[in-house]
């Protein structure tokens, strides 16, 4: 079905100020998409330098001061300027109103403000990184960051502080929208799981981010004034910094993964042509992960000197928080059973997510197990663990969602065989990069190491080789997705024959999303036994 020539949100207005002053959630999503893609490549460039340097045991590419700034830049940019905003501000902003049958988010102008805050925060941090950088690691541990670092700590944390308000506003917008703007007939248990996971993510965004803001503000204050808030020489406590920092930063990792899990639920149902197994369980597991995720921060501090008994409690809670994630994995797998499975690129990404996230999650259990954590914490084992979750999990889900909703967002179909090739190359490159790092960790290579023992070179070379494949693989979508914008086949409103409300309007959607407000009659993943989709509002 050819798309109509009538206007959609992209063609409604071509003036520059219609973009930079837009309040249309779909345009804000596109603005965010451009910005976070830029940050992804900045962070990726730093990663490239790191892996190049680590191909040899000596420091032969850059000096240690520069190397320390590189891994700090990689962490700061990837965590706060790519992973945390990624799915919520791009796919979330675009799809939340569409999926619930609304015309926009609850507070459209706040949405645009969120983008500008993100831009400002990102600019400040990038400026800090490029006029000399920061060398503290993305975790800014005191007293090194407050008293000893010779980097631009205050500027860097200021940028993150400002970007934090962008996060808070996005989360606030989603919570109010999901509560108040659902279409008639759309009860909570008829919501797509993507919405449930964004809701859980938003609760964390709204509650955890302000705590980070105050922690970073105190770091900046101590650095500027020299008051000993975290400085032991003046009576401060470095461990207080760690508690305050991780109280945010652990829930932050759930901000990063929950939206990805939501995307996977959408992909697995659509490409198995089947209802999600255990919908209610999966929905409530998102909430459980968000809630319990606030109670485990001390597992980053098992060897820090906190009381052993506190350590035991945090270890226990860390095992508990893994249970809802495991339940989701079982439910996704069960969804494929007796379905109609196709292997389109989004599904390849979804399957990759389930496998890679499970490996990441299982190695998380190794780390939750306190006696073993003492051995591998602060080594490459931890780095491998969180890259399996963040890159193997979150980035994979992000790419899966991007491909899945690309026709809806752009009105074009991407070239399927290129997309599948890229997905497979990413999977291969990713494992080659990060699996050797588990081994490096067990062999005792600490993290943030510029030079290392020569006998560890073989695993480092393997990892760096994998990284070069991964880098190429990540560049591929840039080309074929870009190509599709101009020369891709035009998409119909529902190219995947899926059930959600977003597929019941044109691709791309009109400015106010729906010609008439949809009335919802059934749940989000209703398919017949033969795999025919039954849309939510038919």
């Amino acid at each position, binding site marked *: 079905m050819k798309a109509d020539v009538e206007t959609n949100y992209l063609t409604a207005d071509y003036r520059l100020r219609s973009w930079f002053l837009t309040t249309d959630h779909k345009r804000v999503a596109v603005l965010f998409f451009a910005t976070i893609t830029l940050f992804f490549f900045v962070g990726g460039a730093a990663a490239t330098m790191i892996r190049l340097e680590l191909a040899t045991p000596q420091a032969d590419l850059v000096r*240690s001061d520069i190397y*320390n700034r590189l891994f700090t830049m990689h962490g700061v940019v990837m965590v706060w300027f790519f992973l945390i905003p990624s799915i919520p501000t791009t796919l979330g902003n675009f799809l939340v109103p569409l999926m619930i049958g609304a015309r926009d988010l609850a507070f459209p102008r706040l949405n645009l403000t969120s983008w500008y805050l993100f831009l400002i925060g990102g600019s400040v941090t990038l400026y800090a990184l490029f006029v000399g950088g920061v060398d503290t690691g993305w975790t800014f*541990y005191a*007293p*090194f960051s407050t008293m*000893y*670092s010779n980097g631009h700590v205050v500027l860097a944390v200021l940028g993150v502080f400002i970007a934090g308000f962008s996060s808070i506003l996005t989360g606030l917008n989603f919570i109010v929208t999901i509560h108040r703007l659902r279409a008639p007939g759309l009860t909570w248990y008829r919501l797509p799981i993507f919405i449930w996971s964004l809701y859980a993510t938003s609760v964390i965004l709204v509650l955890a981010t302000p705590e980070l803001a105050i922690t970073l503000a105190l770091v900046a204050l101590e650095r500027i004034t020299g008051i000993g808030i975290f400085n*032991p*020489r003046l009576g401060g406590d*470095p*461990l207080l910094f760690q508690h305050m920092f991780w109280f945010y930063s652990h829930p932050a990792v759930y901000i990063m993964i929950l939206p990805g899990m939501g995307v996977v639920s959408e992909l697995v149902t659509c490409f*198995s042509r089947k209802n999600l*197994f*255990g919908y209610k*369980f999966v929905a409530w597991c998102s909430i459980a992960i968000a809630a319990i995720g606030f109670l485990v921060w001390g597992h980053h501090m098992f*060897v*820090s*000197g906190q009381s*052993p008994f506190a350590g*035991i409690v945090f*270890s*226990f809670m860390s*095992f508990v928080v*893994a*249970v809802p994630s*495991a339940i989701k*994995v079982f439910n996704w*797998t069960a969804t494929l*059973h*007796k379905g*109609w*499975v196709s292997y389109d690129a989004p599904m390849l990404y979804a*399957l990759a997510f*389930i*496998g890679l996230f*499970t*490996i990441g999650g*299982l190695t998380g*259990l*190794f780390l*939750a*197990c*306190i*006696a*073993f954590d*003492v*051995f591998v914490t*602060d080594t490459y084992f931890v780095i491998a663990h969180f890259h399996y979750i963040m890159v193997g999990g979150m980035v994979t889900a992000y790419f899966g969602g991007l491909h899945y909703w690309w026709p809806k967002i752009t009105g074009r179909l991407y070239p399927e065989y290129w997309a599948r090739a890229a997905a497979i190359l990413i999977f291969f490159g990713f494992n080659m990069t990060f699996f050797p790092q588990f081994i490096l960790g*067990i*062999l*005792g290579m*600490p*993290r*943030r*190491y*510029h030079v290392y*023992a020569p*006998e560890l070179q073989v*695993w480092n070379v393997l990892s760096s080789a994998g990284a070069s494949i991964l880098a190429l693989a990540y560049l591929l979508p840039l080309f074929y997705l870009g190509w599709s914008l101009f020369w891709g086949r035009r998409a119909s409103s529902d190219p995947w024959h899926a059930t959600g409300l977003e597929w019941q309007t044109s691709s791309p959607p009109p400015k106010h999303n729906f010609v008439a407000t949809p009335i919802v009659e059934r749940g989000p993943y209703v398919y017949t*036994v033969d795999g025919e989709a039954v849309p939510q509002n038919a």
Partner: protein
Amino acid sequence: MWRNWIPFWEPGVSSYAGDVDLLFAGLLAMSVAVIMLLLVLLAGFAVRYRAGGHADRSHRIRKSWHWEVSWTAATMIGFLGLFAWGASLYLEVYASAPAGLPIYVVAKQWMWKAQHPGGQREINELHVPVNRPVRLIMASQDVIHSFFVPAFRVKHDVVPGRYQDLWFEAEKVGVFQLLCAEFCGTDHSRMSGRIVVLEPAEYEAWLARQDVGGTLAAEGAALFRELGCSGCHFGTSAVRAPPLAGLYGKPVPLAGGGMTIADERYIRDCILNPHAQVPAGYEPLMPSFAGRVSEDELIRLVAYIKSLAAEPRQ
């Protein structure tokens, strides 16, 4: 070459490394089982129920809560088992501290300084006897470092402003790598050293060979007099200060109620922040020596006070 590049080719060499390695084996076995099961199921379903295929799709599982409860319960029980295993091993090692050979370690950017009670000093090296518990009392002079000996499967952060306790017992003679595992600045990755484990006789010989100025306690005694501590704590002065003979290891009732044990941490805190934990029955009159003593000097003072055995009152 102290270590091969194949993981666990070199078994751990401390008294509890074997337990840690066993724990790892258990975790690995469980993980491999789960991931293989998952891969088999995912691949199996994806192929068997592919869109173009003719598999039987009737009799789909309808009520899901049997499955949900089962796999949730199985997961929880499995996880609880792993938690209990790790927790019990951890408590065994870290919630107790056997009386060991005390060695003081000071971490600073970017080196490790070790000081034996007899006054022997080492930089980036630590000589210890085999088959004997060693208790490290660690302090940092500047930022957070972390004392990591992969071969012993042991690690502990060294946080400035406090003492950290870490004990281990090496079971094999040899040289093992010491690494700093908490980012501490420019030369963080070069802050490594060697743990040299010797037979007891060789260890004694090594101790005897070192150029020693004086034992830590003796140097501490000199500092004690230099800094004027003896003015209040010994001898007759107008100021009534708590006696220090036999203090180490004893419980101390505090002025605000409550009790504490006079360990190294307490003694150091009293020197740096005397008003925080005033002993019962005494006025908060002691001046703070914060900024006037380095970590090295604190170690000597602590060693000296530890050495003061209980005497009959003079």
